[in-house]
């Protein structure tokens, strides 16, 4: 199969940006990515734009600001996995030979939220019944605690770690360190998850310029190879998202490891889907960084910190960097691109050569989740 490379990345700050329109945010990220790549706008063969709530023809409205018009522009929605889906679209277009250079955009503006929750989706039965996302993850936490003895303190350590990482990333929504005690004492949202156990609802955008091997060589002396680009959709399962593991994360990561010819031990840096503290603990296990049930110990022993076995969410992750849904999956891969080039600044993972991005999107009644994307990048 032909190789595919990231040759440029752009990202706005994450967090409330009431003054900025979402199309402007997305365009700023897209233009920054094109400038970093050194790609002339006329050379872009295809664009995919990932978002969940930004309306029709989003990608066209963004790219027309720079005169990028006429080529195929596809808008993709897969809830929190929209950005990962947009990247997959570009990778497949390039692998098929239909395109040499593509741009993946992800963006969301959520700063007019429903009291901190995502907009309600009236057509989903679980949501209508009152199963807000924190409740879904709280029920996961209950199962994990009951089955494996995972503690509230261990869950809080995820928030402490990601907040600490975020202090060194100027793009982060949350720029304040927290202690275990503060996480535990914060207002309860859905037991055992307190406010500091939940990601904020953010605005933001990210973009990637992705190219074939031939085009990559022309524009970038140090492109970063996309060794695996995998998306799986959720299976029907009795309790939907309520489980003490994410089977779809297991399936997607195993497919990605196989495609890349790598395993969990090879991963130096991971940008993980951590909208709630418990999710990161469960996903350590799903992605094979530790055995089932050992996720709590994994964070407690510092093995997911920068300098540990695998640095998880050195950018601050969804918990601290923020979670503008459609932007998140693209932003994770942008972070890996910078990490693997060694230019991540204060939150650089020393010597990182292999990076993994993982996103899960969409609470759908009687499905595991909507979609799960895993990308593996190699320096």
């Amino acid at each position, binding site marked *: 199969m032909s190789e595919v490379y990231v040759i440029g990345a752009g990202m706005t700050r994450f967090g409330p940006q009431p003054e900025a329109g979402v199309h402007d945010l997305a365009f700023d990220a897209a233009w920054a990515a094109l400038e970093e790549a050194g790609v002339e706008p006329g050379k872009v063969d295809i664009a995919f734009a990932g978002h969940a709530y930004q309306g029709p023809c989003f990608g066209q409205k963004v790219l027309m600001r720079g005169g990028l018009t006429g080529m195929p522009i596809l808008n993709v929605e897969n809830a929190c996995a929209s950005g990962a889906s947009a990247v997959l679209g570009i990778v497949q277009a390039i692998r098929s030979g239909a395109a040499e250079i593509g741009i993946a955009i992800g963006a969301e503006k959520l700063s007019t939220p*429903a*009291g901190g*929750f995502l907009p309600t989706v009236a057509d989903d039965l679980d949501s*209508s019944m009152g199963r807000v996302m924190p*409740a879904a993850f709280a*029920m996961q936490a*209950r199962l994990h605690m009951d089955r494996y003895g995972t503690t509230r303190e261990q869950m809080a350590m995820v928030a402490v770690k990601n907040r600490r990482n975020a202090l060194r990333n100027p793009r982060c929504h949350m720029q304040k360190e927290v202690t275990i005690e503060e996480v535990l004492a914060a207002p309860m949202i*859905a037991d055992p998850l307190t406010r500091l156990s939940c990601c904020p609802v953010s605005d933001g955008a990210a973009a990637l310029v992705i190219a074939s091997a031939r085009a990559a060589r022309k524009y970038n002396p140090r492109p970063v190879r996309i060794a695996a680009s995998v998306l799986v959709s959720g299976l029907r399962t009795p309790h*939907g998202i*309520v489980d003490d593991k994410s089977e779809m994360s297991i399936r997607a990561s195993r497919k990605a490891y196989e495609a890349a010819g790598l395993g969990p031990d090879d991963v130096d840096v991971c940008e993980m889907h951590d909208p709630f503290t418990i999710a990161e603990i469960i996903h350590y296990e799903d992605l094979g960084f530790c055995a089932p049930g050992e996720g709590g110990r994994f964070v407690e022993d510092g093995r997911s910190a920068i300098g540990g076995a695998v640095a998880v969410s050195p950018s601050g992750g969804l918990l601290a960097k923020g979670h503008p849904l459609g932007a998140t999956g693209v932003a994770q891969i942008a972070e890996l691109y910078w990490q693997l080039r060694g230019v991540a600044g204060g939150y650089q993972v020393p010597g990182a050569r292999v990076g993994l991005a993982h996103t899960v999107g969409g609470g759908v009644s009687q499905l595991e989740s909507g979609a799960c994307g895993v990308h593996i990048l190699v320096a």
Partner: protein
Amino acid sequence: MAESVASDAATQQRPIRPGLFVEAGETRERPRLLGSRCRKSGQLFWPAERMNPVTHESGTMEPAEIEGGGHIVSYTVVQRGLPGYPSPYAIAAIQLDAGPSLIAQLEDWQGAALRTGMAVRLVIGTIKTERDGTRVTGPKFQPVVDA
């Protein structure tokens, strides 16, 4: 369908979605869920399915009433929910003895010492209240205390 229809605006109610449940009445001692059964495999589904999504067979579904006994698989108490929901409220993943499972709020849960595995039974109650006072009703589950 709900057999009691209130006319007073203050006590107006509507089901969360039509065709999901049937209330207790003259012919039924307890409320039941309305779903579907595959004539071939016997498997029950809630809500009703158009075809059998497990075997991919069509034309085998028939309406079915589903008994509301089951147990709690996992649960949480939501302290601050969306506007209109009765915060704090308890919500749980419920496994029905009849086969299907669902996520639903609990009724009479305060002081019930919630735990996974706890037996529950179906009641029809208020899931949320709309801004004009309309009660949105649907399946909820009550801990069975004297099992």
